């Protein structure tokens, strides 16, 4: 088990290196990708469609960046086992290592992007910077959920090669359905009502940003884990 874990970490490090090799922007893509999506959606939904969500940029940060992580991980991990046949047949290797290393690779990209985007948001809205530590538990839960889901999908893809197409279709639809359905309930004042076990803590300490991050994670995670 420990050996598989260290092998996973080594493979994750190697994948991070391989991902940005021979690219012009390199590791900057970690930031560029979510920033571009953030900017595009902020302009499209806030300024063009005039969506009436209070603190929309905060909402977008809480939801969009974890969503990119979830979607990219699922889409990249689903075909991994089917495509790694030559490696798996060449020598003995626990196949789950390949999936977990892809998940960890994307997680590191997500954490870096989120941390950097957190800085301007924190400056705009003011909650203490140390509140980001409270994201550890939801992140851990999300990691477990995503890893389990990716393992199931990747194993299914080995036997039913249309799994990948179904995943791409459903994740595309889910994004827009979620955007439409969630904005009706969202507001800074009433969202704390959805945090049944944490609301007393956050109400008293006014960690609105952390609450938003938790909601963003929790809202997306059940819809993904419902698979």
């Amino acid at each position: 088990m420990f050996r598989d874990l260290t092998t996973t970490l080594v493979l994750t490090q190697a994948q991070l290196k391989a991902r940005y090799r021979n690219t012009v922007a390199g590791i900057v893509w970690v930031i560029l990708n979510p920033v571009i999506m953030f900017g595009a959606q902020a302009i499209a939904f806030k300024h063009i469609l005039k969506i009436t969500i209070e603190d929309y940029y905060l909402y977008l940060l809480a939801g969009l960046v974890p969503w990119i992580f979830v979607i990219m991980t699922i889409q990249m991990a689903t075909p991994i086992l089917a495509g790694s046949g030559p490696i798996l047949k060449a020598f003995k290797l626990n196949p789950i290592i390949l999936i977990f290393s892809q998940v960890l690779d994307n997680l590191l990209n997500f954490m870096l992007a989120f941390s950097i985007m957190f800085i301007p948001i924190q400056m705009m809205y003011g909650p203490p910077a140390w509140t980001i530590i409270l994201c550890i538990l939801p992140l851990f839960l999300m990691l477990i959920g995503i890893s389990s889901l990716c393992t199931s999908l990747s194993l299914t893809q080995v036997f039913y090669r249309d799994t990948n197409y179904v995943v791409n279709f459903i994740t595309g639809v889910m994004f827009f359905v979620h955007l439409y359905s969630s904005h009706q309930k969202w507001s800074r004042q009433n969202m704390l009502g959805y945090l049944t076990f944490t609301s007393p803590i956050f109400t008293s300490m006014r960690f609105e940003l952390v609450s938003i991050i938790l909601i963003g994670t929790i809202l997306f995670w059940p819809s993904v884990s419902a698979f």
Partner: protein
Amino acid sequence: MRSGLGIGIKMNSISDSKPILEITDLNIFFELDYHYIASVREKFIQAVQNPLEFFSPSADKLHVLKDINLKLYHGDRLGIIGVNGTGKTTLCRCIAGMYVPDKGTVRTSGEVRAIFDTAVGILPELTGRENAFLLSRFLYPNISKAERNDIVNDALDFTELGHFLDTPYRTYSKGMQTRLSLSLISSLPTDLLILDEVFDGADQFFQKKISKRVLDMINKSGSVIFVSHGPEQILQACNRAILINNGRIAFDGSPEEVIKLYQNLHHVRPTA
């Protein structure tokens, strides 16, 4: 004898009572998906005549390995010979723990190391050097970092690939990939070593060079299973051999007897 691998070796004798490998009544089945070419008219007729079978076809099962019983002791250098598709690689993968038997058991004591394809890179975008370090993780998971550095650097020097080691692995020819993999897998001995047609792809000069290194490792390892289509290689490297025919062990004996039987069975002309 100096043909084939080019280096003579001292035959080892069976010396230990506890088997390193014990296979009992091993059977392996594979499911096969057939996709016959058929016209639209033929498919329509099939769908109408037998709709259940058409829309949910039951997979055929191929009985790959049949009632295999085998024991390997310390010092055994077992050669496996047989025609293509007869189950040699399947048997080796089962021993390596990559396949679960449908029936029977495979018991090993000690570390098993196997490699089935020498032209596989983990991450083709990385350089040969980086892939070598990564591959060493999978082949030698229990060694320290310092030991790993020594082994990999020694193997990289042995490949004679020079500055190509720092170019992407995807740009390598098959021969270069084979050089890298063979040099790496022949770095450390182990309890049970499985080599499945590993010399394919290596050029004649490197084959001679790597043979000495591989044979040195074979001699230091507990037991070896060596799969090859070349009778000369089996004669050079092994003190025992089995002939696999249609998924069964047709004969188990000395390499000379097995090769003679193999050549007679398939009307192969013996080489000088």
